[in-house]
């Protein structure tokens, strides 16, 4: 986690494509960023990534862009949301850089700083629906969470997407991986929401957004 003793550091903004202070900001304010300085650009992470082809920039390049201070390019890339947390890069990194953590937290920074609004990116829509379900039931309810995600595209697209996924849904029903009826809930949904609210408040106070 970022160093809790340091004071709130605003995201640097010099209005240029390159900003010298961005790298140092990431080192200090992103989870795992303190280890990012150890990166020696060997490319083991990008080479190991099973979905690197789906990313705008592989982790190796993204880290070099951070050092070069390319704040906008880094935070508007889709790299962070495509990470599936398989941890292959973390296991293989010869310098002990926690690539997955860094990508996850960079994603958070991008969302909070307004680079990745749900309206704009598919990954963000998905994350938002996922978050809604967790917050509401303490669990992910496949039906409602998927529905919520599809509806974010508008009703016509939602029906099209739902129809396309019908065979999968039937399969899930058959093997009892999905059920009819009310969504499963955890016992203390209220407590969970309180925890999440508190976490968000702490986060906000620290990041200065």
């Amino acid at each position, binding site marked *: 986690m970022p160093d809790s003793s340091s004071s709130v550091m605003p995201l640097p903004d010099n209005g240029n494509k390159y900003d010298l202070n961005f790298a*140092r900001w990431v080192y200090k304010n992103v989870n795992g960023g303190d280890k990012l300085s150890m990166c020696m650009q060997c490319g083991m992470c990008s080479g190991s990534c099973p979905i690197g082809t789906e990313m705008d920039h592989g982790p190796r*390049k993204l880290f*070099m862009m951070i050092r*070069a*201070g390319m704040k906008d390019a880094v935070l508007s890339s889709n790299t962070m949301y495509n990470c599936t947390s398989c941890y292959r890069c973390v296991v293989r990194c010869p310098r002990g850089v926690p690539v997955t953590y860094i990508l996850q937290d960079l994603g958070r920074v991008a969302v909070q700083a307004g680079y990745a609004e749900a309206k704009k990116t598919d990954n963000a829509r998905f994350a938002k629906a996922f978050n809604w379900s967790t917050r509401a039931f303490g669990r992910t309810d496949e039906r409602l969470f998927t529905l919520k995600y599809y509806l974010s595209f508008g009703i016509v697209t939602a029906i099209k997407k739902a129809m396309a996924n019908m065979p999968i849904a039937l399969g899930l029903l058959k093997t009892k991986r999905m059920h009819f009826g009310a969504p499963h809930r955890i016992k203390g949904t209220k407590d969970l929401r309180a925890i999440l609210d508190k976490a968000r408040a702490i986060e906000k106070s620290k990041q200065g957004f």
Partner: protein
Amino acid sequence: MNEQMVRKPGVYLCKGCGIGEGVSVDALEQLATGDLKIQTCRQHDTLCSDEGVQVIAKDIADGTVNQAIIGACSSRVMSDRFNFNGTQVIRANLREQVVWSHPAGDEDTQMLAADHLRMGVAQASKTSAPGTAAEGDFSRTILVVGGGTAGLTAAKEAAATGHDVILAERSDKLGGWATKFSKRMPHLPPYRDPQDNDIDALIAAVETTSAITVMTDTIVTRTEGSPGKFAVTLSKGGTEQVEMIGAIVVATGWRPYDATKLGHLGYGASPDVVTGVELEAKLKAGPVGKKAVAFIQCAGSRDPDHLPYCSSVCCGVSIKQALQIVEADPDAMAYIIFDELRTPGTAEEFYRQAQEAGVIFMKGKVSGVDANLCVTYNDELLGDDIPLEGLDMVVLATGMVPNSTNIEIDAAPSGADQLLNDINPLSPFDRAITASVAAGDADAVEVKKAPPTGSVAAVEAVEDTAIEAPFPGGPILNLQYRQGPHLPVLADGFADSHYICFPYETRRTGIYTCGPVRRPMDMSESAEDATGAVLKAIQSLNNASEGQSVHPRVGDLSFPKFGLDICTKCRRCTVECPFGAIDEDKNNFPILNPSRCRRCGTCMGACPVRTINFDNYSVQMVSDMIGACEIPDEFSGKPRILVLACENDAYPALDMAGINRHEYSPYMRIIPVRCLGSVTTLWISTALEKGYDGVMLMGCKSGDDYQCHFVKGSGIAQERMSKVGETLKSLMLEEERVVVEEVSIADSKRVAELLTRFSDKITEIGFNPFKGF
């Protein structure tokens, strides 16, 4: 051996290690006692066993034998077993080069073994034990030139071994560049943090050692003599004194590259663009107080327009300075822009430390720095030109220039010519042409193509063109040698030495370089280097006082003898000697300085009248060995090929081929030579006249990455042999019959292939038409 003494050769044949199974030892004994008329010939199952050695020792003790010709393993092994207190031992290599590399019981293998024996007997008939050249008093004082880290360490170490030391320093105080540095790169575990600069302690240790005479404000104005007997003139503020010196350690160090030539990197445009050395001064004075500092690596290094080489320490220095800046001020940022970051050895730990401290490393080439300190670089990992804005200091990591000349004094007359002539790998011939081409003098090129390398004509041709000196300033030692006042240097100005095997030895025996004058290095490497150089200097003066050679023929007592009665004063020996061992007297006759000589025999190979010889290695000896082999007539279908193999790398490689059982053509007759430089063209013509069908010279790599143990020998051989082709043509012989091959000691498989391929080639060309005449 005294000339009057009667030679009593004895032949001892070993049957062990497969020799007994591979060849008929009885037939060899018959040959020895029959045709070769050897009185004493004995066989033994294991000659190197105590019992076997006893057989030889007994014959020597009762006076039946005073030269032992041992037909067993290679001369490179078992020399301690076959050591009979000065009795000459000649080795016929029946193991590695006969039975281990050729099929057992074969007719050709037997012929090869017989020829090895014949060559051994021929060698015994011409060799004699060398007498010593050591005469007079030898000084054991060591002179150290330069009082920086390397010089101080050298003086301290020399004094610790009980030698008197004179330490001459050009400036008014000791310590050199190290006194200007705030901290030094880590040299102790865990090699993580910049360490305190302990130069003051080293200076104090030297100043308080009574065996060391420290002379500041002192330069060497004149050096005469040879190892053990150098007469060195030291000038302290103009007052001269002459000291007798045994050996010299040159530790004149370095100077930073002139940053005023780096205008394109912003030097001079802003006071905040500084060099690494200038930043050291600021760091020593106190906190720098800068918030964003960029270091530009390879500023004027690895650049053909500036220093073409890597100075190896600048990366470490920038890492150190970046760490000092971010550690003094946690808000400060340091960026290191590198093309290739070089962190040899433990510096890798130091690099990690800097990464952990948050120093940002960027790979790219800097294209420019403007007056606002905006550094533009092409980031290779992003493929983009990136401007770094908002810096408040730019540091140029400039390289090291060796102080192989003293830039504070005037150039010596003829110094420029010597520096140019002696630069490896460029020969005087190449230089003359390069200079003429540069001057646009096409006719001169034609004229200068004529004289052979190293000849007096070539040297004079260079002198005529009055070329500008490659390095400014005067000589460090001002040697009063035939070959000029400077220590020979490489093209970049660093002292020339056999880099891998004999790094400290310069091409002037008894004079050793250490520290950054030899190659770029940091303080701890310099200290280590100085220790090594001092040990070599001590060896050198010990060897000189015993009349022995230094490396690579350590212990060799022989030295070249000049038959001045037929000397034509052509001066080829004095010019071609790679070590400047031979001077000229006022009548232009050569005079040898035995303790400067390394016994390579390059003078012997150079002499057109073949009047230079060693007691145990002579033109006649090798000619007789060549002639001793039996040459089958052309109807036998068996060609004969002479291989003159350098004993330093090629001969061991041939032995290794045997050890690894790489089979090669049995038509080869291999004779070891001290260096290809000692090969005289007479041997080649002798071989061809005798009916050999081809000649192969096998030596070390020449050129800028030379491996020749005598630096110039193999290059000189290449030059000489390039002229042989025309002679062959005039004899109606094919040029391909004589080849020069460059091999390394690890080439065991390759040498076997080379020999077989050459043998096939010769078979293709056909037999030597002179065979049988």
